[in-house]
């Protein structure tokens, strides 16, 4: 079955360092991947979308890559701050869907220590 997998272990880093989160997809090739941020007790908030024909996308301190050979997307936060602490979800478009349905990974919790 189509699957999106993220590292379920929390990622702890020091303020100012670059955080790198991984999203792997198996048994299919999503036309795009989306990254969302989720704070405790709140709904996810959209951050970035990257399509399969795009290698890299940036938005302020955020960078996301899409490697179709490794079947992987990497999400980077440069110059991380304690305010970046949250859970980050990766979602891939399901199959050839034109309904916008996303398959989500389990999320990776990032903790940035001052």
């Amino acid at each position, binding site marked *: 079955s189509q699957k*999106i997998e*993220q590292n*379920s272990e929390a990622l702890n880093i020091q303020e100012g360092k670059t955080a790198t989160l991984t999203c792997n997809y198996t048994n299919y090739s999503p036309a*795009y991947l*989306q990254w*969302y941020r989720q704070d405790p*007790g*709140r*709904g*996810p*908030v*959209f951050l970035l*979308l990257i399509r399969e024909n795009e290698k890299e996308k940036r938005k302020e301190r955020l960078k996301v890559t899409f490697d179709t050979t490794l079947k992987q997307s990497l999400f980077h936060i440069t110059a991380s701050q304690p305010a970046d602490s949250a859970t980050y*979800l990766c*979602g891939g*478009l399901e199959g050839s869907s034109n*309904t*916008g*349905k*996303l398959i*989500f*990974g*389990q*999320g990776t919790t990032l903790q940035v220590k001052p």
Partner: protein
Amino acid sequence: NAGVTQTPKFRILKIGQSMTLQCTQDMNHNYMYWYRQDPGMGLKLIYYSVGAGITDKGEVPNGYNVSRSTTEDFPLRLELAAPSQTSVYFCASSYGAEQETQYFGPGTRLLVL
């Protein structure tokens, strides 16, 4: 714009009771989705809709029903609550087509005892 709103915020149900989770969006989005999120897990799609009058099942539809009579509203119905339905429920919407960003509501926390 209020975006996506959900009510109630929190509810406790007894086994076998029924309830409707409300979801409304004011962005004139065509596509709407219901997800559930269990602790430490990602989002699982329950039902979705691509427009008024059109709904379809997602990955985990058993025990739920939906309707979409207007563009704005997409209620989720639990008919016979079971402990396995204890979860946090999120409603989301998107314009669809080439604008795929999903906008999420604040969630409804449901506890079935």
